[in-house]
């Protein structure tokens, strides 16, 4: 495997594997938020806001994977 192929593979793996965890995490966050809203629809606005904050934190990890991918593809 030459360096170029390794780089491409690494870029794909970086975002591919990196998106698994955040994907699961965001699913859990959304599931919890939906359950809370179903139980107590009065505070759905607040829950949604906090859900987005939680999702943003989980998503940041996937974004880091994306950054590594981009750096591998375009910078290294």
């Amino acid at each position, binding site marked *: 495997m030459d360096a170029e192929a390794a780089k491409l593979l690494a870029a794909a793996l970086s975002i591919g594997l990196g998106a698994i965890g955040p994907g699961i995490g965001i699913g859990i966050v959304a599931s919890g938020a939906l359950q809370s809203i179903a139980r107590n629809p009065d505070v759905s606005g607040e829950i949604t806001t906090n859900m987005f904050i939680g999702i943003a934190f989980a998503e940041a990890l996937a974004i880091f994977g994306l950054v590594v991918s*981009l*750096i591998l593809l*375009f*910078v290294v």
Partner: protein
Amino acid sequence: MEALGFDFKLIFAYFINFAILVVALRAFAYKPILNLLEERKKKIADGLDSAEKVKEQAERERAKFQTELEKARLSSQEDASKIAQATAEMREQILTEARKEAEAIKERARAEIEAERQSAQSDLRRQVADLTVALTRKVVGQSIDKKAQHDLVGKFLAEMGE
């Protein structure tokens, strides 16, 4: 970094752009709109307050009016009953007076009639007597004597008197 397109001049240019946007929006959008919302909130609160006040006032007026009305009704009722009583009394009085008067008139009329009858009777008697005498004189001529004449008249009168 270069390959990702980072360029400090551009970052600074973007920053200036953004700063202008912040200042402009603050001046054109946030301040006037928030002031407006505040003003509107105050106005609505004022409106509600004054509406409350007006409602209270109206309630008070209504209560006052109600009591006055009650009073008026009571007094008018009293008046009416008093008037009715007075009317009844007056009616009674008028009726009695009228009855008395009627009685008096009747009495007087009866007395008059009685007197009339009396006078008419005596008048009639006298006329009848005269007539009879005249008639008799005519029929009998001077033939009948004084005694028979008086007997006749007396008899006639006695018959008539009954």
